[in-house]
């Protein structure tokens, strides 16, 4: 019983509980939303189906079983490695995810990179003279970036570039990084820019706040008093420590981005995981939505768990809960 009380075991236990909760929530939500796969795919034509047809369709889609049976059938499948099959494209969810997930991961990684490249230097800049004009300027641009809805930015950017420069790589069929790296990277530019711009402000703020906080710490004052050179002080003592919270929050952002940058994927035609869920949702592809959301949540929980563990190692204070 000692193990159960160990913080790490407890975190893992919590993670499992969370995933069960997510799967139940997904399952319930899907059933509460009006309509089922029959009305979703036949639309008003469903009115012309005979009762026999409806019955055989219900059996085909697995709707004839009771709800608990449906849930545990799906859960058993997942535990034995069978995530289910999309009944519209007749491809397994595992295969669908295998295609979509790398695209989403690529999008997330690149967006985070852009967010960090914009946010960290600007954060350092802002913190260098708090309250002065460059601080105010960066704060203002960060505020603007936070306040412009990404759907607005995305559509305006896309149509402006296509209309005035005839450049719109996302109209070409999507190519993965492996198939055609050149085209793939071009197709990533716009969505990454839009997402990066929305990630940069919190990175900037975290960096700035952390630097200001650490600068006021005793050990920095002590180091300065002991005559540690200013440049070394800034990089070794301040920036390095300030980056710890930035790393934590980057991990968190990454987890969320994996959940699908829905708007960006939709507008820029990136076949990622967000669109996969959305598609499943509108088509009432229960297995697709349940399994994909579970995969997203698992990744999210794992990333969090890892950040947490890393944090525990880096910062001894965090070990005490």
């Amino acid at each position, binding site marked *: 019983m000692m193990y159960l009380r160990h913080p790490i075991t407890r975190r893992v236990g919590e993670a499992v509980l969370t995933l069960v909760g997510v799967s139940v929530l997904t399952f319930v939500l899907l059933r509460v939303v*009006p309509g089922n796969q029959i009305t979703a795919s036949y*639309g008003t034509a469903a009115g012309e189906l005979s009762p026999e047809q409806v019955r055989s369709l219900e059996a085909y889609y697995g709707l004839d079983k009771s709800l608990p049976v449906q849930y545990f059938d799906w859960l058993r499948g997942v535990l034995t490695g069978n995530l289910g099959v999309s009944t519209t494209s007749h491809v397994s969810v595992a295969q669908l995810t295998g295609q979509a997930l790398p695209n989403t991961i690529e999008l997330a990684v690149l967006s985070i990179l852009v967010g960090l490249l914009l946010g960290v230097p600007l954060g350092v800049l802002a913190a260098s003279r708090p309250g002065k004009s460059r601080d105010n300027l960066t704060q203002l641009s960060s505020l603007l970036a936070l306040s412009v809805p990404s759907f607005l930015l995305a559509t305006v950017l896309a149509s402006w570039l296509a209309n005035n420069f005839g450049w719109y790589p996302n109209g070409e069929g999507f190519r993965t990084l492996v198939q055609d790296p050149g085209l793939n990277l071009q197709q990533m530019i716009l969505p990454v820019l839009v997402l990066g711009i929305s990630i940069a402000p919190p990175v900037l703020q975290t960096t700035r706040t952390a630097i200001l906080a650490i600068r006021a710490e005793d050990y920095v004052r002590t180091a300065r008093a002991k005559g540690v050179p200013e440049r070394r002080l800034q990089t070794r003592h301040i920036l390095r420590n300030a980056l710890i919270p930035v790393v934590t929050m980057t991990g968190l952002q990454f987890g969320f981005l994996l959940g699908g940058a829905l708007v960006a994927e939709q507008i820029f035609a990136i076949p990622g995981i967000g669109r996969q869920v959305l598609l499943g949702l509108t088509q009432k592809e229960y297995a697709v939505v349940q399994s994909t959301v579970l995969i997203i949540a698992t990744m999210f929980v794992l990333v969090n768990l890892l950040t947490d563990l890393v944090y525990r190692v880096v910062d001894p204070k965090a070990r005490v809960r």
Partner: protein
Amino acid sequence: MYKVSRTGRRALSAGAAVATATLLVAGCSGNASQGSGSAGSDSTLVFGITADPTQMVPWTSTSEQSIQVLSQVYSTLLDTDADHNPIAGLAELPKISADGMTYTFALKKGLKFTNGSALDATDVKYTFDKIMDPDSKASSRSYFASVAGVQAPDPNTVVVKLKKPDASFPVGLTGVNTGIVPSDVAVDSLETKPVGSGPYQFVSRTPNESITLQRNPDFSEGKPGAAKLEFRIIPDDQSMVSALKTGSIDVAVFDNPVTAKTATSDKVKVDTVSSLQYHVLQLRAAAPVLTNVNARLAIQCAIARKEVVDSAALGAGDITGPITSPEFKSDPDAQPCATQDLAKAKDYLAKAGKPGGFALNLITSQGLYSTAVNEAQNVQAQLGKVGIKVNVQTLDSNTYVQKWLAGDFEAAIAQNGGSADPNTMYARYFTSTGSYNKVAGYSSPELDKLFAEGIATTDTAKRQAIYKQLSDQLVNNAAWVWLFTPKEFIAVNTKVKNFEARSDASLSTLWKASLS
């Protein structure tokens, strides 16, 4: 024709394509007219669609995208001409027995599926039997409602016996969802790898991204114009426009005139086509508030249809009466109030015993087609002028479909499918035993009689007279208020040659198109 939103983004129709109303007229592989594409070209023709097709077996197809893709892979027994009338397809036009109960089809010679096996009467019988199977998933099953049995006396002859005369039967055979499938390939395998006899043959599919087809050298009507045909999924309309402008896709269909206009350039030409579909304000006479015919007529008189078209559809439509079938078309002005007449509307309200107007619940959908919500808002504003207080309920597509099917509404904004045959269009709504009579909420002995006469008559002139009366019955009783037939816009890159824009944006002649 199942109608579907093209506004991918809003629609969440990312998902795709839910049918609003039934029926399918889009022909399959085109007619025998000349015009083989520039044969030497081996480039790829790219067609932009907003969502992944949801069905791959012809008889289950309901979504617009499925119909577009499958119409290139499968052929139908009969095709349609530009006016949607049946013409020879895989078979010549049928010989009909004197009693109108037996249809005999002679198949063309040397037909082949793309897997090399011959297409003969067995395959036709197999397909039709599959559709009529009570357990089938066929959306086209109702077309065969009057069929007693299908026989294949020899490889080139198909005989269909009816239970009762049905003049509308041949029209059903032009739809993609009666496309002929090979009898020696398992249906399950068709789901992932379609095998047909259409102009193009299936090569590969990447879910959510694209479907690639290649030229079928054995296509019975000629050599398809492009070596490859790719259907590429671009969910967002604005992205679609951008892709057209930069030349990465060659063809796309829009229903919004302004979007179509922004797509137009020196490299992109836009054709406007009409449609057999119709937009309508469905009134349920069965609902207490609309039981009185004068209440319904008041609504008809209070609505300026032109204004609905101009505001909600930005002018992209033609005012219509009930029947849109070219040969039987209703006169749009033959109704008690051809134009808005508020004084008359108030008279009718007074006659209905509600001089001050009344409250009306109106359902409309978001995500089925782009103008639905706009139409509801405009109808609401117009009816408000005579004191009819409209409460608009905007529902998502699934909820709308469920309420619509259950007849759980007073009034509904709908876009319904048309057909070359008026019986196919309306018998299911307005005969007392029709499958959608609960949805329509109106029937009468007069209508039942007219429908019965119309279907039992084969002479076109006589049928025209019958359907004229039928149409009058519908508008004089204001069963519904018919608004307009929409226009569609087909944007085509100028390097595409021999593309023939057809009404309903039917792709039946797409095979002739080639790239220069």
